[in-house]
């Protein structure tokens, strides 16, 4: 080790000691309600829990898992013919305002890596929910349009994991966004 490397090692250790970690594990875990609902073992729960599971299941069903679709060469993406878009959904928090939903759409629309942006409103999600669970009146009894998140669905013109996860991490920083999920490439 050179002098500089030794100095640097000691200096970084001293400087790192000035950091003040503020652990808040429960806040981390409470920010991931969607995943927690998915993980609930549904069959021995009350009807209310069953309903929560149904909501999560519907969100999961509406999230494409292995859907791939080749993109055409038209449009402004110069290498669109070489890319295959992966379907993504960005879920907006149910309590978010219409302005927030529109703002998220406006942020996604001009991106060159986003194609075919479409909004699913809470009402549309609710109608889909009713259709999916038409034969489960005990679940529908508790359902209402405000419990399901609105979402933006689009094709993301990436095919590698790191680019897709960078994208989802980027959009999930928006406090109005509940979560983002994309199909596996």
């Amino acid at each position, binding site marked *: 080790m*050179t002098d*500089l*490397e030794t*100095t*640097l*090692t000691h*200096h*970084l*250790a001293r*400087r*790192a*000691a*000035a*950091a*003040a*970690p*503020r*652990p*808040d*594990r429960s*806040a*981390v*875990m409470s*920010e*991931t309600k*969607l*995943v*927690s609902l998915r*993980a*609930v*073992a549904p069959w021995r729960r009350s009807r209310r829990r069953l309903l929560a599971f149904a909501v999560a299941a519907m969100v999961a069903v509406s999230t494409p898992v292995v859907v791939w679709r080749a993109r055409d060469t038209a449009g402004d993406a110069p290498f669109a013919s070489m890319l295959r878009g992966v379907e993504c959904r960005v879920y907006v928090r149910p309590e978010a305002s219409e302005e927030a939903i529109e703002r998220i759409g406006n942020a996604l629309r001009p991106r060159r890596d986003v194609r075919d942006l479409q909004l699913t409103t809470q009402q549309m999600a609710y109608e889909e929910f009713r259709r999916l669970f038409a034969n489960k009146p005990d679940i529908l009894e508790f359902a209402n349009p405000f419990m399901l998140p609105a979402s933006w669905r689009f094709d993301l013109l990436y095919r590698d994991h*790191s680019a897709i996860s*960078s994208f989802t*991490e*980027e959009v*999930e*920083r928006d406090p109005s966004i509940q*979560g983002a999920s994309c199909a596996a490439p």
Partner: protein
Amino acid sequence: MECAAREPTAPRRRDEEFTRFYLREHEGQVRRAFLLLGSNDAANDVVHDAFVAVFRRWAEIEAPGPYLNRVVLNACRDHARHRRRHERALRLVEPADEGVVIAETLDDVLERLPFNQRAAIVLRYYAQLPVAEIADALGARPGSVGPWIDRGLKKMRKALS
């Protein structure tokens, strides 16, 4: 008694595993992020968001440690990029006084290095990570790490001489 003897459910087991992981990793990650960002608030925010991302994908991730490293470093890179942009804009509004010469400290020089060089140096000399792990955390080839560290040290030597 009956409850205590029962096997934990999958969500509970997941929560316990994540809690152990959080307790093991949190402090070190905040200290590393602090070295890269120079701010306690920013470091805690970045690490908090990274843990949220990890917890969301807990069931899918095979190696949460390296994944967390990558998420934290990506967030630090983004944060540093935004800050540089902001500082550049400020310099346009308030140009620096050219007559003033300020002695540079080790931190000043480190902060001016490109992000990959700075992060490689922090991960090598603070976190003592091997080259392969540094490369994985920065999403780069192992062959890039050595030159980043060498170039960073060379610039530091020059600036401090």
